[in-house]
Structure formats: structure tokens, C-alpha cells
């Protein structure tokens, strides 16, 4: 087994996941929150690919491809919602989009 060890894959994955998590929790602009979510999804993909390489099993890579497809679909809906909110001339601030709260 040559190349980058699994440890570094996981470190990168954790790092990106942490960045994404902080982004989702800190940001209020829905566009940036979507970006952060995308970051978290791709960090998971890196972990999957890393494990797939470690165990010489392509299942993880296939799963990463599926996650990408799902992420694409999610972005379409998320952006659609953002555009819809924008066309209502409302502020792009998720803390103010809370009319369903208890």
C-alpha cells in the first residue's frame, strides 16, 4: 500500500466537516449555508473514497458518486428556495425566515 495513508484522508475529511459545520451554524445567508452544507457532504465523500482505497473496495467510490448526485439535487431545490425568497423581496437572512416557529 503506497501513497497517502488513510489517516490524512480522515484528517482532511474531519477538517472540512468542521468548517462546514461552523459555516452552517454561524452564517445567516442561505446561499452561504448551502455552500457550507455542500462542504460537509464532500468531506463525507473524501472519507468514503479514503476507506474505499484502504480496503480495495469500490463500494465507497460508488457511494460517493451517489452522494454527489443527491447533493446536486439538493442544491437545485435549495437555490430554488433562495430565488423564491429573493423574488418576494425579503431579506436573505435565515433567522428572519421563521414564521413556522412555535
Amino acid at each position, binding site marked *: 500500500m503506497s501513497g497517502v495513508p488513510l489517516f490524512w484522508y480522515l484528517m482532511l475529511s474531519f477538517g472540512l466537516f468542521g468548517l462546514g459545520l461552523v459555516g452552517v451554524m454561524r452564517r445567516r445567508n442561505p446561499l452561504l449555508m448551502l455552500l457550507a452544507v455542500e462542504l460537509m457532504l464532500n468531506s463525507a465523500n473524501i472519507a468514503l473514497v479514503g476507506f474505499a482505497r484502504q480496503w480495495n473496495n469500490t463500494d465507497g467510490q460508488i457511494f460517493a458518486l451517489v452522494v454527489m448526485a443527491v447533493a446536486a439535487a439538493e442544491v437545485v431545490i435549495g437555490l430554488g428556495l433562495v430565488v423564491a425568497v429573493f423574488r418576494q423581496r425579503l431579506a436573505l437572512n435565515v433567522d428572519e425566515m421563521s*414564521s413556522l*416557529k412555535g
Partner: protein
Amino acid sequence: MEPALAWIVLGLPLLGAATLAAWPSEPPRSMTRVLGVGPMVVSFLLTAWLYVQMLGENSDDRLVVSRVWEWIEIGDLSIDVALQVDPLSVMMMLVVTGVGSLIFIYSTEYMEHDRDYRRFFAEMGFFVFSMLLLVLAANFLFLIVGWALVGLASYLLIGFYYEKPPAVAAAKKAFIINVIGDLAMVIAAFILVVELGTLNYLLVFEAAPDGLGRGAVEAVTILLFVGAAAKSAQVPLHTWLPDAMEGPTPVSALIHAATMVTAGVYLIVRTHELYELAPYASDLVAITGAVTLFLAATIATVQVDVKRVLAWSTISQIGYMIMAAGLGAYGAAMYHLMTHAFFKALLFLSIGMVIHGLAGAQSLDRMGGLGRHLKFAYVATAIGVLAISGVPGTAGFFSKDEILASAWDAGDLGRVLWLVGALAAGITAFYMFRLLFRTFSGPEPEGGYGVHPQPSRWPMAAPVAVLAVLSLWGGWIQVPRGWTWIIDWLEPVIGRESIPGQQAELVTLATSIAVVAIGAAAAWWIFAVDPARPKRLAGRLVATRRLLEDQFRFDHVYDRAVVGPTRDLAEYLYRRMESGFVDGLVRGAISLARGSAMGLRAAQNGLVRTYVFVMISGVVGLGALLAWVVTR
């Protein structure tokens, strides 16, 4: 013989009723007429065809059980979906569909001005279907199903004018009393299942002589008779029938003539194998019939509502049939059932013409002298009155005399019941002629009729004419010392019935002619000769009149003994149980839901980062728990 015909006869009225009921809106009147009357007439024609086919068979081959599939199988008990086609059921089918068809044709005109034309025909068709199921059933279970459906249909039709509180009360009363009978029949069926393990008529009758003890057979027959008494309005379960007059007149005709009240007589004849094993129950049946026929006849003499006079006369006539059935004269009972269907339908429909002509007036005080305006109704009612009174030559004469002659031959009890029956025959003539005189002859009522009496058009007149012919000549199918078509026809079901002896025939003939003549003459002397005389006589018989007008206070007793305490108990339970306990539970559930919701709404603060934080905390917490469990 094609037993499938019976299924078609049974299904057609239901099909018509279901189509009418499922029609999305009120269909055109002509369509309602076709869907309402058509299935009935076709059913009647098919029944007639079945009858003709059956005539061609040997009398041993005339009993067919048409089994379609097994419906219920529990342990050894097996219940089939099956119809029993035999002379008895075919005779009942002929009466139900034949008289029913005439009433349906009549109704197309009678109900013309009613808003709920479609509902009327749908419910009538359902009624006829229930009755056909009752008479065609091949086991006690389907008998009870038909029995209960007839009760439901009568409830719907008696309460047809549901805006009128008396109609609703009458419908409720009929239903409750009928359910008492249903309950008794269900218990009887349970006893049969326990003792014999079957509900199939033929198997029960085959096994009964050896399989049922004396006590069991008496219990079963008495319980069945409670059902019969509730349906056939016998004392003390008769009080619903006079109130049932709240329904439209064709409904009364259908309930009284073709369906429902005859079901009790049919039941006793159908299960006569059991009654022959139960002498006490049979005596009870006969005595109940005699008491009923006498009480009802006396009550009918003072009624002021025309339809109530007819209602009490029905109870009285059914009493004759029940008495005959209790004494073992099943052929005579069925014979009277048939002739009664003719002349009672005739009376209701011809009186219905009067009510229709007077735009709904039913009180005898609002009538009088109508013979001049409504000649056709006058003649038709007169024929009906002659027939029910038993004037020689008419239908009622032959059948009633056969019942009385059979009673004369039935031992000491029979002689007593014969006397009661003969006496009541005189009273019957009296009250029926009273009805005739007070409606059609004499002066017009004070203040006129309110509306000008309108003669009826052909859809009402034609069925009345047919029934008039049947009431006049229908009795000739069985003539003492001549021919015995009814008894011959029913022989495969009821066995060879002994014919009353010559002495019984002669005594009955002489007596009945005498009492009918006396009754009719008394009615003529009191009500037709001098218009002021009824009032003078009424002044002298105040106590008797009051007792009769109160209908022997049966209703008062039931109110005091059953209705009142039940209402008090319900009131008590409402106050204590309902408002304290039940409502408390409901309110507690509501406040629990509301309180917990108020507490939990704080969690939904609308900030996405809070949700994310809680989610991540959950994942981390679960992961830590898992790691702790695995590594421990």
C-alpha cells in the same frame, strides 16, 4: 323448476332500490317510476312463472333448496347462503310481489306531489326485498337477517315524514318493539345451535323430534313466537302498529297486507314441525291470537282516525291467523293470510283514495257523505268491508269460517276460542260498517271538507279495481265440501291437513252469518239512520268508551313501567356518569395535549443553528454512548 328464478325475484327489488338510492340527484319522476315499479312487476311475473313450473312437478319434487355457497363454518356449525323454494315460500312470494306490485303502481300517483319521490320508492323496494329474503331463507340465520331488515325498512317508511315528531316517535316505537322480537328469535337460534348444531330448516325439523327435549322445544317455540308476536302485532307487543299509521297510506297497505305483519304467521307455519312438538307453546299462540283478535276488534269500534280503524282491524285479523296457526290449522291460517292481503290492501288503497281526494284529511269527523263525490272509492271500500266482515261469498267469508270451523273441531280450548272468534266477527262487521257509513253516507261534516273531493286517476283506480275483484272472488279457491286448493298446494310443507267436520262447518256458517248480520245492522241503526244517535249513545257509555279510546291502557302501562324508568335512568347517568366521568376524561385528554404543546413550543425557536447544534449534539452523544458500550 328453475330455483335460480327465486334469486332473481329476490334480487330485482334490491337492484331497483339500490339504483334509485345511488342516483346522484333526484331522478326524473318517470325514471323513478320505471325503476321503482318495474322490478316489482317483473318479480311478480317471474314468481308466477315459478309457480306454473312448480305446478308441473310432482308434489314430492316441489321442495328445492338452492344453495350457492357456504357462508360460515365454525366447528360443526355450517351456514349456507341458500334459498328454500317450496309451496309455502312461493305462496308468500306471490302475495308479496303480487299485492306489492299493485301497491307500487298505486303509489306512483298517490305520492306524485311528494318531494321525496325517489326515497319513497327506494325504501319500498328495500322493504319488499327484506320480506322476500325472510320468506325465502333456507335457515334460521337468514330468516333472522330478513326479519331484522324488515324491521329496519318499516322504521324508515313509518318515519318517512321525518319532519313530523309523531312520525319519528312511531318509527322509533316500531323499531324498538321489533327488536324485542328479534332478540327472542336470536336466543331461539342459539338454543337450536347448542341442542342440534344446525340452523338449516330441513335438518332442524328432521332432528327435532329426537334431538330436542320437551323443555328445549317449548323454549324455542315460545321465543320464536315472541318474535312473531312483535312482528305481527299481537298482544302485548301490538302497540306499535296503530302508531305506524303515521307513514304514507301505501306504506300502511304494504305493511298490513303484503309484508311484515304476516311474517309472524308465516314463521309459525314454517316452523310448524316444532310447534307440533310443543303443545303448551301452541296453546299459548292460539290464546294470544284469540285475545288479540278480540281486544283489537273492540278498540276499533271507537277509533276516529280512518287509518287507525284499519290498523286495529289488521291486528284483529292477524289474531285470527295466529289463533288458527296455534290450533294447528296451518292451511286455514295461510288461506286467511292471502285473502286478508287482498281485502286489507283494497281497504287501505280505497281509503287512501279518499284521503288523497281530501288532501290528507284522515279523521272520520271530517268525512261523511263522500259517497256522492267519490263513487269509485265508495264501491271499492264497500267491497272491502263486505269481504273483511265475512259476508257470504266474499273472500273473508270462506277463510274466516275455515279458521272458526277448525277451532270448533280443536277440543275444549278450540270451542272457547271459537266463541271468541265468532263474537269478534260480529264486532268486525260492526266497526267496518261504521267506517263505511261514517265516511260515505250521512250528511257532510260541519264546515264542509276543506277542499273539494277529487276523484282519483287510473294509476290509483286500476290496482284498487284488481284488488276489489280479488276480494270478491278470491275466496272461491277453497270451498268447504267442494275443493281445497290451498291445503292441497301446501301439502308438501304442512302435511295433509284435516278438513273441519260437517257439524263444525254448519254451526260456524250459521253463527257467522247471524253475527255479521247483527253487527252490520247495529252499525246501520246507530250510524246511518239518525245522525244524532251516536252522540246520544256515547253519553251513556262513558267509562267503556274511555277504556276503549285508551286502547286498554297498554301504552300507559308501558310508559309507566318501561319508558319512564328508562328515561329516569338515562337522565341520572347523564348527570352523574356523562358530565362527571366521561366528559372529565375527554377534557383531561384535551388539557394534557394543550399543556404539553405549550411546554414543547419553546424548542421550536426558528433558529437553524439551534437545530443544527441539537442534531450534532445528538449524533455526538449517540456516538459516545456507542463507543462506551463497545469498549466496556
